């Protein structure tokens, strides 16, 4: 591998990459709003922000996967515009994604060969691979098949693959999300060495401790804007958390309804994941009572999907009494039996999970309504009734669509979500469990969904909202709990818990094992 331009240099040099006013809009949603970013060689620069703050979009702009609507990028002092990722790679910008793109049945060397633009023989590559691996202390056997490797080793392949292109700027997106602490420590040593080589590193994370330990500069994003720049080594995790989640005063929700008996009780739920990359749920205890909205905050991938699947019945649970719906032990019940107990569910993925994309709305109304209600008689589907249900949802929740009964995939995200949430609310559930209710929606649609949840709870239903959007939870929830590494903190009234406290819990600080273990609902 060719040595970088100025190997001995460790002092920050003039910016390698300069972004000015970078803006990216998706419809009416602005994912990046006039972002300025300077990246210099010999520097580890952290990009901090909650999920949805705009980190991934910014990375996609820098790596050429997306083109900015506005703003200017400079590379080594000259203006650049990347038509695609190949162009960015060619100039020396490489990225290591948190999702590996590896073929399990191929060897390490074959995988690396597939990822390179230029064709090279696998044997020559193996030599080069070993040289790079040795230089940076990234031991890798080029001949081993990927399926034999640990997650940390797989990540090493991605890093080595990026390094083979001799990048001047290396972008790492949540690199430690999948690593054990020991693997993470080893990664940090490698990153430090790359920095000492004079390369620029952009390190994306929401783990505050890591950022403080590693980065010399941090840019903090919130809601698509830069809300702060700092030297994280001079900050505390608390101050970083406050910058990340904002420090607005929490205005408690006007509670006009009365809280009643528990509709959902989760007692010491522990559950290993179905999927080897999933999160183990540990000792989760939670109650949601009639008339209240409970929010579960947390960064994605901390067990929220697993919790939703366990509550909905999509995952089977051995211990019958770990989950009770309306007082009935429901752990062993199927999702339809839970629906018969008055529960309703709205999963995160709208297309492919909550709906069948290629099927009409009336078919999709049948998807969750076939077990209860009068849509099916003697095994025959009453088409008139399913269409009437679509009309009722459309009217009650203002679903905009081109025709009476279009395919689900033809609706915009907001209108589809109104349909999905409306479909469940019209079943008049005693308990509604929603995962990421307003994910990716514009402000108008998000507001309509939140209002629908508030209205539902006002009628006496219990509502559980799982969301990565802290603002959303603070706006609508009565109590909030935080999920981290498969554990759930005890839910606390919104008026008693501060944003910074929530931010710390979400980042993994301030957890006592006893807290997660002993915490009961309210």
């Amino acid at each position, binding site marked *: 591998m060719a040595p970088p331009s100025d190997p001995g240099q460790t002092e920050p040099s003039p910016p390698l990459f300069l972004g000015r006013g970078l803006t990216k809009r998706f419809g009416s949603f602005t994912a990046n709003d006039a972002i300025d970013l300077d990246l210099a060689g010999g520097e580890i620069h952290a990009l901090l922000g909650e999920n949805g703050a705009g980190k991934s979009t910014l990375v996609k702009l820098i790596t050429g996967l997306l083109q900015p609507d506005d703003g200017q990028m400079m590379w080594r002092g*000259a203006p*650049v515009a990347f038509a695609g990722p*190949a*162009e960015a790679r*060619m*100039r*020396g910008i490489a990225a290591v994604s948190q999702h590996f793109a590896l073929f399990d049945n191929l060897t390490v060397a074959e995988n690396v060969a597939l990822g390179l*633009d230029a064709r090279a023989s696998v044997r020559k590559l193996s030599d080069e691979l070993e040289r790079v691996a040795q230089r940076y202390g990234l031991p890798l056997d080029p001949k081993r098949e990927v399926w034999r490797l640990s997650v940390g080793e797989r990540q090493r392949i991605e890093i080595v693959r990026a390094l083979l292109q001799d990048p001047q700027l290396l972008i790492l997106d949540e690199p430690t999300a999948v690593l054990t602490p020991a693997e993470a420590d080893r990664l940090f040593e490698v990153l430090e060495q790359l920095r000492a080589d004079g390369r620029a590193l952009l390190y994306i994370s929401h783990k505050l401790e890591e950022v403080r330990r590693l980065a010399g500069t941090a840019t903090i994003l919130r809601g698509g804007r830069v809300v702060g720049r700092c030297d994280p080594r001079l900050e505390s995790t608390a101050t970083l958390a406050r910058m990340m989640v904002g420090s607005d005063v929490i205005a408690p929700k006007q509670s006009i309804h009365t809280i009643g008996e528990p509709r959902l009780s989760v007692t010491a739920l522990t559950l290993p994941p179905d999927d080897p990359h999933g999160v183990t749920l540990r000792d989760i205890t939670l109650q949601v009572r009639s008339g209240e909205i409970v929010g579960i905050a947390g960064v994605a991938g901390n067990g929220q999907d697993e919790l939703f699947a366990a509550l*909905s*019945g*999509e995952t089977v649970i051995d211990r019958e009494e770990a989950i009770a719906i309306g007082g009935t032990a429901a752990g062993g019940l*199927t*999702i*339809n039996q839970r*629906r018969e107990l008055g529960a309703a*569910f709205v*999963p995160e*993925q709208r297309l*492919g*999970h*909550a*709906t*069948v*994309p*290629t*099927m009409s709305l009336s*078919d999709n109304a*049948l*998807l*969750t309504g*076939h*077990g209860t209600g009068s849509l*099916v008689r003697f*095994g*025959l*589907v009453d088409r008139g009734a399913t269409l009437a249900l679509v009309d009722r949802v459309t009217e009650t929740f203002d679903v905009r669509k081109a025709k009476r009964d279009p395919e689900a*995939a*033809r609706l915009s995200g907001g209108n589809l979500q109104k349909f999905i949430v409306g479909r469940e609310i019209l079943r008049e559930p005693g308990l509604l469990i929603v995962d990421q209710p307003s994910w990716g929606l514009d402000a108008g649609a998000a507001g309509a969904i939140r209002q629908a949840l508030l209205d539902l709870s006002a009628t006496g239903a219990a509502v559980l909202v799982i969301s990565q959007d802290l603002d959303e939870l603070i706006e609508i929830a009565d109590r909030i709990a935080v999920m981290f590494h498969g554990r759930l903190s005890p839910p606390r009234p919104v008026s008693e818990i501060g944003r910074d406290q929530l931010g710390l819990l979400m980042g993994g600080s301030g957890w006592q094992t006893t807290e997660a273990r002993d915490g009961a609902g309210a």
Partner: protein
Amino acid sequence: MALVLERRSERSVAIALASPLLAIALTLVTMTVVFAALGQNPATALAVYFITPLTDGYSLQEIAVKASPLVMIAVGLALCYRANAWNIGAEGQLLIGAIAGSGLAVMTHGADPGPWLLPAMLLAGALAGAAYALIPALCKVKFGASEILVSLMLVYVAGLLLDYLVRGPWRDPAGFNFPTTAEFDSAATLPLLIAGSRVHAGLILTLVAVAAAAILLGRTLKGFEIRVVGTAPRAARFAGFNADRLVLTTFAISGALAGLAGLIEVAGPIGHLQPDISPGYGFTAIIVAFLGRLNPLGILASGLFVAMTFIGGEQAQIALKLPQDMTGVIQGILLFYVLACDSLILYRIRWRSLQRKALHGPL
């Protein structure tokens, strides 16, 4: 320049409808080349395969007789394939159904047991076919075995069992050592719809199967379940549909229909059990199912078309001295084009120039 497949933003309804016709057209073009290479006049050869079968009454009746098992099996396969369960072993289920039903005919030979015999044979054929199809389905659900391989391999097991029976225990003692059972009694034979022809009552059962499958898929909750499990497994789980149980159900239905079709063949046109009772109906039905877009009514049309290639193949043997295998070639090419054309529903073909090398800018 290179050809690339690009994903369409939405599935093309126009191509979905035109795809089977396009596949047939491409098959005809390819066959023109094949016939020319064989030294035949392509126009004459195509006419023998695709026009003469439609010109006389006998051929038309034979098309109906051959289409009947194809359609009945393909309808069952369509339910499987819609549910993302891949039963490739309908040929074996057909043989087992024929064996089971024939067992009753052989055991009651000359005894005249009464009017229940034929219904009992039909029932036995269907049940045996279903049971045989449940073997790969259970292996898939319980052990994660590939239902494609297991169902395919069981075809050969069934074929050898049939061979053993007609050469051994069930051989007609008065049959001059030919490997066949005795000719079935009339009580064990399907009545004819047209006297003097080979058109038998099995046709009516086929039409009933088509109608039942059309109603099942289009109108019932079970049909909805099949469609959801096949298109969006995660949404199916969310709807509370059990994909494993559906694999068993659809395999059982398709096995039952294949077994019934097999029994109808031996109790109808053939009249006894012999080693070769099917010219590969169970495999050809896979082509029929896809050509008919996995839709029962479409399958009725595609079954008639594919049956025509069997009749045309017989006539080509006589008129052109072409081997019977030519029929298999045509059917294989047809399936190839059907599947290829189907990818155009979701993808479009684009020419893209290779200009990656030109991107080296100032570094």
